[in-house]
């Protein structure tokens, strides 16, 4: 038996119960990222348990995206300890898929939809070899999960914003990871896309994967996610929706920028 293996017990109704808690997919301690001398994220601790779906929520410029980028080592951290599945990111890349903001790339790049999805198979195809029909089939399957299989040979510049977002999601699906980190996947997308993305994310959760999503739409947080992390440079709250997504925590995060009526609209129960 390898040291990583765990005993598993199965309850009467078929649920698996681990005898020992699996390593947490993403655990961050004291994460601090600074642009120049103004910290964007200051000393944030957070845990994202296995199989959970967490929304990272906060006002504009609160460091939501920076938090993800810092955890992934895309931007350099001033301080902090980051563990993916209990290990450094270098050793666990295979299990982590990142979906960057759609606006972060130039969509006039000469590539077809299928080429972008195949990028998710980069490590599998290997550095010098050519992708084969097996890889193409995998890519098409990922495209069909987001309803884009008919667009495989389309030039990416011809896609709508929502379609671009779904291509990015398909690329992450191609990695077949355990942890999915998404940066604003619902920003500026159409209803069909929002529906398709939520469906895929819930499928991932049902398959035991972990999802972390930078999210800006407060009204859908409780419908789409089971956990929330509120951030405004510092972490304001973190936990299951019922505990962490309250008028008090929202007020603390948005610091009065959120009108009381807006909070009421979220129907968070009596304050």
């Amino acid at each position, binding site marked *: 038996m390898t040291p990583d293996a765990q005993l598993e017990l199965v309850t009467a109704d078929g649920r698996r119960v681990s005898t020992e808690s699996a390593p947490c997919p993403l655990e961050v301690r004291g994460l601090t990222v600074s642009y120049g001398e103004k910290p964007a994220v200051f000393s944030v601790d957070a845990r994202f348990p296995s199989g959970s779906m967490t929304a990272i929520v906060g006002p504009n410029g609160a460091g939501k995206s920076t938090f993800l*980028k810092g955890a*992934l*080592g*895309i931007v350099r951290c001033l301080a902090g300890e980051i563990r993916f599945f209990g290990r450094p990111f*270098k050793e666990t*890349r295979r299990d*982590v*898929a*990142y979906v*960057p903001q759609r606006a*972060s*790339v*130039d969509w006039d*790049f*000469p*590539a*077809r939809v299928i*080429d*972008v999805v195949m*990028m998710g198979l*980069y*490590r599998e*195809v290997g*550095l*010098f070899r050519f992708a084969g029909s097996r890889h193409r089939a995998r890519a098409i399957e990922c495209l069909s999960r987001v*309803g*884009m299989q*008919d667009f495989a040979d389309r*030039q990416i*510049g011809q896609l*709508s914003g929502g*379609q671009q977002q779904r291509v990015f999601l398909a*690329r992450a699906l191609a990695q077949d990871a355990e942890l999915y980190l998404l940066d604003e996947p619902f920003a500026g997308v159409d*209803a*069909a896309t929002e*529906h*398709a993305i939520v469906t895929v994310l819930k499928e991932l959760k049902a398959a035991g994967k972990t999802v972390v999503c930078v999210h800006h739409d407060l009204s859908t947080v409780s419908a789409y996610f089971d956990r929330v992390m509120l951030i405004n440079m510092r972490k304001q709250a973190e936990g299951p929706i019922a505990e962490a997504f309250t008028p008090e925590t929202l007020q603390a995060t948005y610091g009065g920028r959120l009108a009381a009526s807006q909070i009421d609209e979220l129907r968070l129960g009596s304050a």
Partner: protein
Amino acid sequence: MTTLDFFLQALTLQGGYNSALVAVGAGLLGIAGGGAGAFVFLRKRALVSDAVTHATLPGVAIAFIIMALLGGDGRWLPGLILGSAASAAIGLMAVEWISAKTRLGEDAAIGAVLSVFFGLGIVLLTVIQTMDHGKQAGLDTFLLGSTAGMLIGEAVLIAAAGAVAVALVVALRRPMTMVAFDPEYAATLGIDVRRTDLAMMGLALIVTVIGLKIVGLILIVALLIIPPVAARFWTDRVDRLILISAAIGGVSGYTGAALSAAAADMPTGPIIVLIAFAMFALSLAFSPLRGVLASALRHRRFQHRVHLRQGLLALARGEAIYDRLTLRILRRRGLIRGDGVVTQDGRGAAGRAQLDETRWTTARRLRADDPVLERYDGLTPIDRILTTDQVAHLDSLLPKPEST
């Protein structure tokens, strides 16, 4: 013999051993330049490569001075290439350092480095002119390139380095493509973005230093940029872009060198660049994919489809049509008569357009989030997107079919 005869001879490698060697060398240089340039272009680093090429000049001059002072031949090409590579690398590091550590943008850093290095190089060239052997040095041919009096060893060196550059392009195409499209995502997959960028600029550097002799340092950047820009008109795929770009570079280098060998006193570099530009201009005008003519035609065809559709819907609703283009299109298709009265065909087509419109409206209302319906563009008939069964089902749901 006329110049044309010389040119044809050189083009078919009949113009003597030396000019054949130069033409092949320039062809390989062009292939390497087009291939490496494809990544420089995709990564939007064209200006950086311009700074790097200009930064070679002081290195050439200093290498000459050192070799001459040591009593050797100051024009020994491998020595000059090493010198130019060293100063170009310093120039590249200077650009990166200035844009990373100061608040200046990369454009400012490029402008500063380019002019300072080039100025220093010109001063050093003038110093060389005053040295004992300086007058015969002929270093000024490095500015605009020359194939006259090239040694066989030099041509072989250029050809070999060009082949190495081509091999590197093939080997590194995947990480370089990933970094050019989406560097942050590439980083999460474990691609070292900094090193990949360095490799890309290293490739550009190789092309620059081996192109010094033939094309010259002022214009070598054109061999990195024009071929991929021209190739972009022909394809939407990176792998093909690299191949086409390399082909355009290769043809430019080969024919340019042959032409300048045939006509005495023709500067090689500018000729090569002009040929590359001619291919760019042809691509811009005539490429069926992204060329100007094809785009204009496509736009016109699309405009006609829109007018036809609008015209048919207007006919179906019995509205008057005033737009001349719409009337002309309807008339040409025999849908209305010369006096504007609807023909039998016209009535049928208008009914079909109206039915299609109703089907689309209903489908989009009932199945708002069905991705299939994303292909709605107001023009494509829905029965070309849905199956016959689906359309039949849809028809049973229509509020009240207006067509006959």
